[in-house]
């Protein structure tokens, strides 16, 4: 028998002709890549930070497909397919090394265990994975998956390529009585059938030869189609992941208002290279759409559609303004909840693109949806977005021994109340509860009072970067003068600004969300609670959870307050937006409203209390839960204060 091996191009005289389609394949492939390259080259430079975290992300998200497998069925199927094709690609390269360069690589144990057994296993895994894909797409029919011709052709062609591969293998084993055939266990199994069917050897040879060319041409066509289809994500997904912001692009880019040629994005050249590569990296998996609150509530926005529309625009009308591809209703429907970005397996960054295009509409063209326009104008004119507010910045603290900071004073703990805490009657109660907790801890609490002004977050998310920057500069100036030891805030939007986005304006303060501060106080025994016992479900605010990564602290506070915690279907990183973000807190929303969807989930847990840690979520959920017939909606500070107050009184 000699050394185990197989003859490459067995039974294919004239196989050298295959270099002709191969050459065509190369040209077609390169042309396709060039077409896409042309678009990427239009982008502006992607601001890049250190490489280390990016590479780690690449290894995890692309190498280990850690995000893909978050959906176990299709996730593991996809991972299996990726590994299978990776192995089959290596196997094909080995064949080429032997056939074209005469290297003795395809023999012996390597041939038997890798080229035969492993690759058969890979091919089989690929077939199973593809079958799962097809069943999911066409039998289970999730709405987030497209069912156009290309959506069918891609898995179907791959399936045919794999099946014909096995058929070729089996015919060869059958016709040559391959002594090592059993290692190629799938082909071997099939070859056993041919004997039963009395397939003659000459017929087997003819079928094999024809099938060989069919398999080859199909595989080449498939490869050639890659740069023209969503399959291109094979190449671009890793690049998109590598270029993605390791912090999840939670902080928006600071726009150079003085020097920017255009404020915001309206041409492809206003987007970054990463933005443009994102368009080609999209796998059309639809996960972003599945988690999008705007889409779920019937607004004209699907993050997947947005990416695909931009892709089509980039390739068909690269010189035209983006407004031709993306309508205002779509742009302004986004709540900037980041659920899409968290779900996207290839780290496509939707929100920076959306805000970039909003910037153009708002700053260059003066367009803003009503409600949001008034809120933004409110920030400009009176430093807060709440129209018709009946309070001053300090009304909420009447009767509490809290003082406004005075110039020259030292400041231990600065309570950053936020506009909601100051002007929204419901949130004022939260501010009071929090202030009382801080006082119970013996803190020397101060507030900025009239010196506090909106962080500018609603303006920035709406696209009014100019106003935002003025607010940011002013606030950083004030805070630098106050120089508080720590800032505690009850608003996740303020938290995100003060802690992260203000860094671009020279801020470097110790800022904590009240949940974090209260949790520490509970752990260190500075706060004592009475027994509780209510069934509570906690809603993760987008800007506290997905933006700031605070998930455990509020839950710990609730537990310490005697809460019996139950989780909603969507929680933690997968939390579902309350509907307030991106300026929606100030807009009129038609039915069905996002907050109703969220409230329904909350009510379904059977909890007596829905807790949250954001004044905007509080207001949205209060409306929603009431409409859904649920119980109380409270901030964690209120829940904790209710448990702490009796202790304080008891101690006198």
């Amino acid at each position, binding site marked *: 028998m000699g050394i185990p091996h197989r003859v490459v191009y067995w039974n294919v005289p004239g196989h050298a002709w295959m270099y002709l389609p191969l050459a065509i394949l190369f040209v077609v492939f390169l042309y396709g890549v060039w077409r896409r390259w042309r678009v990427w080259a239009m982008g502006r430079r992607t601001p890049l930070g250190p490489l280390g975290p990016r590479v780690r992300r690449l290894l995890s998200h692309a190498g280990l497909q850690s995000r893909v497998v978050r959906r176990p069925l299709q996730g593991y199927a996809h991972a299996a397919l990726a590994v299978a094709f990776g192995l089959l690609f290596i196997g094909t390269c080995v064949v080429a090394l032997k056939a074209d360069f005469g290297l003795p690589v395809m023999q012996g144990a390597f041939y038997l265990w890798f080229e035969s057994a492993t690759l058969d296993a890979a091919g089989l895994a690929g077939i199973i994975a593809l079958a799962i894909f097809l069943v999911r797409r066409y039998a289970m029919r999730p709405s987030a998956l497209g069912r156009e011709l290309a959506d069918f052709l891609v898995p179907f062609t791959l399936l045919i390529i794999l099946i014909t591969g096995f058929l070729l293998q089996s015919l060869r084993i059958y016709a040559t009585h391959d002594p090592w055939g059993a290692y190629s266990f799938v082909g071997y199994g099939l070859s056993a059938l041919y004997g039963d069917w009395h397939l003659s050897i000459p017929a087997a040879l003819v079928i094999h030869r024809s099938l060989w060319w069919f398999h080859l041409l199909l595989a080449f066509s498939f490869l050639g189609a890659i740069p023209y289809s969503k399959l291109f994500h094979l190449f671009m997904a890793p690049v998109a992941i590598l270029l993605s912001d390791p912090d999840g692009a939670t902080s928006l880019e600071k726009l150079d208002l003085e020097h920017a040629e255009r404020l915001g994005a309206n041409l492809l050249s206003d987007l970054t290279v990463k933005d443009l590569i994102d368009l080609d990296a999209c796998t059309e998996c639809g996960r972003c759409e599945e988690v999008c609150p705007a889409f779920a509530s019937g607004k004209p926005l699907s993050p997947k559609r947005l990416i695909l529309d931009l892709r089509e625009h980039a390739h068909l009308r690269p010189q035209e303004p983006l407004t031709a591809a993306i309508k205002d209703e779509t742009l302004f429907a986004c709540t900037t909840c980041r659920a899409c970005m968290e779900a996207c397996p290839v780290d496509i960054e939707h929100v920076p693109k959306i805000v970039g295009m909003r910037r153009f509409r708002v700053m*260059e063209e003066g367009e803003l949806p009503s409600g949001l326009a008034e809120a933004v104008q409110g920030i400009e*004119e009176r430093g807060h977005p709440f129209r018709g507010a009946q309070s001053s910045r300090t009304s909420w603290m009447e009767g509490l021994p809290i003082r406004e900071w005075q110039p020259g004073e030292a400041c231990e703990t600065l309570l950053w109340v936020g506009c909601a805490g100051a002007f929204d009657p419901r949130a004022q109660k939260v501010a009071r509860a929090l202030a009382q907790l801080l006082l119970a801890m013996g803190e020397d609490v101060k507030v900025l009072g009239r010196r506090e002004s909106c962080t500018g977050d609603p303006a920035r998310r709406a696209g009014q*970067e100019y106003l935002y920057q003025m607010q940011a500069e002013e606030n950083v100036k004030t805070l630098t003068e106050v120089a508080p030891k720590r800032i505690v805030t009850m608003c996740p939007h303020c938290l995100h600004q003060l802690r992260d986005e203000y860094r671009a304006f020279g801020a470097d303060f110790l800022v904590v969300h009240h949940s974090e501060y209260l949790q520490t106080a509970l752990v260190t025994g500075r706060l004592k609670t009475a027994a509780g016992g209510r069934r509570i479900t906690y809603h993760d605010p987008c800007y506290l959870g997905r933006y700031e990564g605070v998930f455990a602290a509020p839950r710990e506070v609730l537990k310490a307050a005697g809460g019996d915690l139950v989780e909603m279907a969507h929680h933690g990183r997968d939390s579902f937006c309350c509907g307030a973000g991106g300026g929606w807190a100030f807009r009129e929303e038609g039915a069905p409203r996002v907050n109703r969807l969220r409230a329904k989930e909350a009510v379904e847990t059977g909890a007596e209390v829905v807790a949250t840690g954001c004044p905007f979520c509080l207001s949205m959920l209060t409306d929603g839960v009431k409409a859904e017939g649920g119980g109380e909606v409270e901030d964690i500070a209120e829940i904790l204060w209710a448990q702490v107050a009796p202790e304080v009184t008891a101690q006198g």
Partner: protein
Amino acid sequence: MRILCFLKAILDPEAPPGAIRFPGTVESGDVATVLGPFEGNALELSVQLAEGSSGSFTAVAMGDASQDVALRKALALGAERAVRVDLAPGFQDPLAVARRLQAAAQAVGGADVYVFGRQAGDWDMGVTAGLFAGLMDLPFVPLVQQAELEGGSLRLRREIAGGYEESLRTPPLVWSVTNGPGTLMRLPKVKDVMLANRKPIDVLQAADVEPTLVLAEIEQAQVTRQGRMITGEAAAQAAGLAAELRRFLVTGGGN
């Protein structure tokens, strides 16, 4: 067409109750000064008219530097010139205001149309535009909601009971603008705002005029609500109502 648009920035009408204490003083420093709402409407129609006539407009305000917010808005929306008639803040007698504005209008070379907001949102008197027209001896069209150029004339539209009234007027003339479907002030473009912040505001000295009206005292109205049900037969109800009204007229309400 030369357009002069008169603006006034006022203490934030959305300031919480109690934040502004009378007479005319502000209790705390966090009440903002904002462009009056009807002046916003006047500004919008001035912009539209300037665009329609491929001309421009000049914005005029009177007061101290706190008026600049109004003038900067106008500059951001395309005013070619912003003029502030320098005057200490506080209550101004409308006739004195009209006289000073007349002097200012003459100082900047006059115009074809003079556009006012229907009333300043702080004192809400609504007479300055009419007084100004009288002093200038020009026709006055109040409460305009739409203005279009037609040849050398202006088609002005006003809302009247049950419909609209349109009139074709030949400049020069004075009109005041009220809120309506097309008068919502547009958002300025940020580039223009940035440019506007660098443009100069011309300051004129206010003309010396004798006030005819002096603010002696002002009191904040106390809101009280009292309801009384008048029951009984229809005739008894009518008699009861009449008696109530009579009592109200005599005593000015109360108990």
